[in-house]
């Protein structure tokens, strides 16, 4: 392929830091978990009983996927974080391939490359290969670290392959959507929001009930379960890896085929026409923000509603599989911030996870305030009689209101099925209140985001650290015997977790006020600083 080397070197140069940080973050989690196995699981017969019950617990299964050999540190670790990390590798892969292909094309840089002596498919090939190399790096580093941390060569290799090949499939997914849509943003939404998010949710449905032959068959239709189904550290089934390899090959081939069917800069569909003038609502900073955000707002609302109802349907299983084992309760507590009753624990665990997820919606809207500036749109709007204040609020208000509304809606929708089966509507109020109480965490993260947009716009990406740290704390650090204040040092750590904990107005108000203060401080910065042009 002519010009492939040059295109690959360019892609590597542009994305090396992106992959470096992702590979480090994704490769250390499993080894960090495996070293804590003996602290977590009681020795002897007791431990086996606890593990057997854990593996059968629907909440655990919904979150983590199917369990095989939990008596082995490696097998336990893969169950505890493996499927989740594999999905995260998929996220890296899709984002990476889109940033190297469609995002570059949208900014007009692929045109410069393609004008050279370069075959048309070279930029896509470079982005795909780089994504696969990134997945390979995750695979090699994870396998190496696991091998160093716990015995079992086969298990380590299977762990690496499971992570890497799950990622590889999403190289394919990202590459296909990068051909279909002319905008990188849309391609990301479809790859991550719809395909990856949907696949994780479907997997949760299939994995929750205790195994039956029908469900076992369905499990094979869940690509995110394949890594676990290869049974790392539990007599590995190597042939399973043929499945992700086949899917990757198919998707990549499809992407290259689609690439030949479209023009440079275009998607598959011819650009549509639209109204010759703005409707009455398209006026002012708020009208513009709504017009720019409406598709993603509707998408988030639908996605969250479906997820909330779906998760709610799993709660019945959580109830029926109730167990009084203190060790299990201890475990659930570690996952869900200290809740005792299993049904409440289930809702609580889901709410905590959803709080992080919906905050992402707000972070992405605030990112839009920043990208509107670097795209030169803010300059145009701010040279009209729109004040800085109004303009920034046009994005900042939905950035805060949307995730808050989504979390409250999650709290209201999740227990609806439960309430209908039990005939006890009180649970809806309880869980809605529990969701409301978690909202200051959202305000705090977005306050931090606004502070960055206002004062250090180039460093806006740092706000993702708040999300990354929260996930690291709740998935990895809780397993370590770190002091309580460390595990609580995240946006939702100090907030009261209703209904099992009593309401603490102090923590709630302090965090809410702190979040609002950061927002205000960020807006002040936005009013005082230079606005960049294109």
């Amino acid at each position, binding site marked *: 392929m002519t010009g492939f080397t040059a295109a690959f070197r360019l892609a590597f140069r542009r994305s090396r830091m992106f992959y470096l940080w992702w590979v480090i973050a994704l490769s250390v989690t499993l080894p960090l978990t495996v070293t804590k196995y003996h602290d977590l699981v009681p020795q002897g017969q007791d431990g086996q009983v606890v593990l057997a019950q854990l593996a059968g617990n629907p909440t655990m299964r919904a979150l983590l996927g199917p369990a095989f050999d939990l008596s082995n540190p490696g097998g336990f670790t893969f169950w505890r974080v493996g499927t989740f990390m594999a999905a995260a590798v998929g996220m890296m892969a899709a984002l990476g391939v889109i940033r190297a292909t469609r995002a570059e094309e949208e900014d007009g840089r692929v045109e410069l490359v393609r004008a050279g002596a370069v075959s048309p498919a070279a930029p896509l090939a470079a982005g795909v290969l780089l994504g696969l190399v990134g997945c390979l790096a995750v695979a090699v580093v994870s396998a190496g670290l696991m091998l160093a941390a716990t015995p079992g060569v086969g298990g380590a290799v299977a762990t690496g392959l499971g992570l890497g090949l799950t990622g590889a499939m999403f190289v394919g997914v990202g590459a296909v959507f990068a051909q279909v849509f002319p905008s990188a943003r849309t391609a990301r939404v479809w790859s991550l929001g719809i395909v990856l998010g949907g696949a994780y949710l479907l997997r949760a449905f299939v994995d929750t009930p205790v195994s039956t032959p029908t469900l076992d068959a369905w499990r094979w239709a869940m690509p995110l379960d394949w890594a676990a189904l290869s049974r790392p550290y539990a007599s590995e089934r190597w042939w399973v890896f043929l499945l992700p390899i086949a899917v990757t090959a198919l998707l990549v081939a499809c992407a290259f085929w689609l690439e030949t069917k479209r023009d440079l800069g275009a998607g598959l569909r011819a*650009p549509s026409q639209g109204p010759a003038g703005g409707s009455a609502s398209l006026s002012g900073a708020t009208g513009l923000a709504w017009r720019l955000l409406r598709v993603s707002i509707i998408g988030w609302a639908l996605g969250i509603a479906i997820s909330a109802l779906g998760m709610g349907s799993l709660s019945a299983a959580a109830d029926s599989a109730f167990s009084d084992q203190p060790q299990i309760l201890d475990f659930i507590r570690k996952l869900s911030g200290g809740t005792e009753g299993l049904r409440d624990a289930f809702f609580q665990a889901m709410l905590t996870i959803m709080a992080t997820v919906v905050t992402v919606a707000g972070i992405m809207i605030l990112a839009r305030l920043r990208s509107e500036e670097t795209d030169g749109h803010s300059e*145009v709007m701010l040279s009209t009689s729109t004040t800085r204040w109004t303009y920034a609020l046009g994005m900042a208000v939905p950035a805060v209101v949307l995730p808050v509304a989504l979390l409250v809606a999650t709290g209201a929708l999740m227990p609806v099925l439960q309430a209908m089966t039990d005939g006890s509507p009180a649970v809806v109020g309880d869980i809605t209140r529990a969701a409301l109480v978690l909202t200051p965490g959202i305000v705090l993260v977005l306050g931090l985001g606004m502070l960055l947009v206002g004062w250090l716009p180039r460093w806006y990406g740092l706000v993702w650290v708040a999300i990354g740290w929260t996930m690291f704390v709740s998935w990895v650090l809780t397993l370590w015997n770190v002091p309580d204040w460390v595990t609580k040092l995240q946006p939702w750590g100090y907030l009261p977790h209703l209904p099992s904990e009593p309401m603490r107005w102090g923590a709630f108000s302090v965090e809410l006020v702190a979040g609002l203060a950061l927002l205000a401080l960020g807006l002040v910065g936005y009013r005082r600083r230079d606005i960049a042009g*294109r």
Partner: protein
Amino acid sequence: MTSNAIEISDLVKRFGSTVALDHLTMTVPTGQVHGFLGPNGAGKSTTIRVLLGLLRSDAGTARLLGGDPWHDAARLHRRLAYVPGDVNLWPNLTGGEAIDVIGRARGGLDKAKRAMLIERFDLDPTKKGRAYSKGNRQKVALIAALASDVDLLLLDEPTSGLDPLMEKVFSDVIVTERRENTTVLLSSHILSEVEQLCDHVSIIREGRIVESGTLDQLRHLHRTRLAATVGDLSVLRSLPGVHGLVTENGRTTFEADDDAMPPVLAALARAGATGVTATPPSLEELFLSHYDSRTPERVMA
């Protein structure tokens, strides 16, 4: 209302260690079409952005329509319209929607004028932003700016990407605006456009105004190039204001300052010079002398 639409004095703007505007001073009286020229990176767009209150100045003062461009930004912006140098439209809004959202944000636009401009610029307003060519994006920004009745137009290379036919439409519209006493600050590299539209010109280089005046005044500041066949060169050599005297194949060429012209012509006549030609500086030479940063002290080639 003051008689100056724009008053800038000793304006300084730094980006880190780079000095973008270095004690820049310029004035644009109300109703003037003011050409703003200078090489790439000289500080034209920075000046306009300070005037728009997008950038905060580090020192000096800037006044716009009698107000402070930073503190009174939103209020002043009702009375002005801006066309950025690099127009980028919202990819999923149509051109017509972009025109309306910008116009309404300014405080409304004249529907009849909007329709007239779409017609004259031959724009299809139903296309999505990402589907427009560079020239068509430029038209959208121009229509959005020109469709409002404002006192001041800040135009940063407004015709870049336009075809000659559309450049002509643009010139006609500006001529109309001038008749209505609109002040225009026009940053441009197209000399014919500047010559045709501008009453007054300021040339910026490395963040300062190096020359400002009417085109005639600027011409007078520069040397006229002369050529003649002269027998005795000694008279010319001793005259003040004569530069670069060279004789090749019996033909003498040199440059003379504008105020040295009468004695030079007298001397040539006395020396019995034949085949005398005098070429005033062309606009192009005038600008090139300022644009070429490699020879900062040179005035005319």
